């Protein structure tokens, strides 16, 4: 299914450069990766074509792979007679300093909150979004929490974020234990 669909996208959206990743077995999900700059056109095509259309957006998820970030659009087709499951559509963003991608709110209103969440967690800016604010974190929070290189700010409005005396001792012991295990393994390897 993903192979035909990526061919269909390539035929109809010039420059989309859709590449299908086909999972080897049922333990993984297949996906389609497209050019980030063409995401609006691709989703527009997927929504409005007559051959293989998807009528709803299930969710937008972001993943930080250190060298690049991915925005995953989960499209689905709510039609009792034609259930096509979930299509994972991905767009890669290589710029970590100022990542931006086109918003698809004008196609699916579900994207409004979902894109705000991705912006909140990864700092990915969605161009043409009507109301791009943080959604789960406070408006004046610093940093992008779900990035892998995130370090929490020290003070938030004069309150210490991780006060030493409030930190869960078991967590701290866990960290110490993990470090000890790592050291032991390194010593063993030598």
């Amino acid at each position, binding site marked *: 299914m993903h192979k035909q669909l990526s061919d269909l996208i390539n035929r109809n959206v010039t420059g989309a450069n859709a590449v299908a990743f086909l999972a080897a077995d049922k333990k993984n999900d297949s996906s389609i990766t497209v050019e980030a700059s063409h995401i609006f056109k691709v989703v527009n095509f997927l929504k409005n074509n007559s051959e293989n259309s998807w009528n709803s957006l299930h969710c937008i998820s972001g993943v930080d792979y250190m060298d690049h970030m991915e925005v995953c659009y989960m499209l689905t087709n709510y039609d009792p007679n034609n259930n096509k499951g*979930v299509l994972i559509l991905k767009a890669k963003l290589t710029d970590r300093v100022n990542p931006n991608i086109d918003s698809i709110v004008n196609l699916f209103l579900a994207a409004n909150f979902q894109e705000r969440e991705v912006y909140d967690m990864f700092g990915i800016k969605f161009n043409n979004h009507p*109301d791009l604010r943080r959604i789960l974190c406070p408006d004046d929070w610093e940093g992008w929490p779900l990035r892998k290189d995130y370090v929490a700010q020290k003070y938030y409005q004069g309150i210490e974020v991780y006060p030493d005396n409030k930190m869960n001792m078991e967590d701290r012991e866990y960290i110490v234990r993990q470090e000890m295990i790592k050291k032991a393994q390194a010593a063993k390897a030598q």
Partner: protein
Amino acid sequence: MQTRWDIGEPEKPTINQDTEQLKSELLVLNMGPQHPATHGVLRIEIWTDSEIVAHAIPHVGYLHRCMEKHAENIDFRGIIPFVDRLDYLAAMNMEWTYAAALEKMLGTEVPRRAELLRILTCELQRIASHLMAFGTYALDLGAFTPFLYAFDYREKILRLFEEVSGARLLYNYIWIGGLWNDWTNEQLERVSAFCDDMEEEAKKYHELVSMNKIFIERTANVGVMNIDDCLTYGASGPVLRGAGMKWDLRKNEPYSLYSEFDFDIPVGEAEHGVVGDCWNRYMVRMKEVVQSIRIIRQVIEKLEPGPIMGKVPKVLKLPEGEIYVRHECPRGELAFHLVTKQDEKMPYRLKVKSPCFTHVSMLPHVAPGQMIADFVATVGSIDIVLGEVDR
């Protein structure tokens, strides 16, 4: 397409034209964060013109517990208690979805008895959750008695769960590969006795609330979310079915053993009001209770003794890859997007797609032009749990 949350120049509602000279400006009213009708800590900024809502802007995040960030630092089994706390009124369904995602990645075969018992517990949980929705919804509309009726029967389910799992609300009962504990025959007999009682009780609820003239006046034709709205906003569960779409993952994408079971998908039929309004959404839930009872009875017939835990390695190490698993939970479709790295004991990324989050985003769409009291009815009818919205 016009966007409804762009509040640059608020458009004044056109109702009550004759009182035009009385209007001066819109009044901003905060509903919440602590408000009985928001079922948790949700703040809705309402711009009102006398009694009429011009705009509603939901502010979520008051219960944000960084679950997705935590999950990246905890091993796969340790996440289950965190998953419980997403939708704390339907914790079993949350656990099952998470366990199903991992089992699919591991390729674990879950024993038949475990799968049947999962269906049993999750359908019981669905009844408990819908009872809560029924009780609190009536409470929102000013009827106190149904709340007590609903809690009486919800309590019976919680007692059963307490015996089986040791906890009343947050169970940590469905484990990866199977279940933590088996049900005894005596407990199963009590479940079937409960089903008989519940079926009678559900009829009583219809007399008490559903067909009550005042209740119908308050909910029918109020807060209409039609099918196009539902599709563009990605609504699911009772909201989508209340709008008339016959869509249920248990039937349309049967996971586990649901394909063996005989049950119907209730949809909004507009006996009162129009399809997609508060009354129809409420009615879908009440009809689902009856269908859940049907499923539970079939489970008890099918149950045979057997193991309840599949073969799962002691230290979970998943193959590299990603998976997106969705299940039908009481409030809609819950999904996990799980990304793993080779030989890591923790997920690389765990994204929760929560149904209530999308339903909250529909509020600005339905609010304009409603009375404040009707808006309370609308918020209640989508049955939000803030633990799941904020994660």
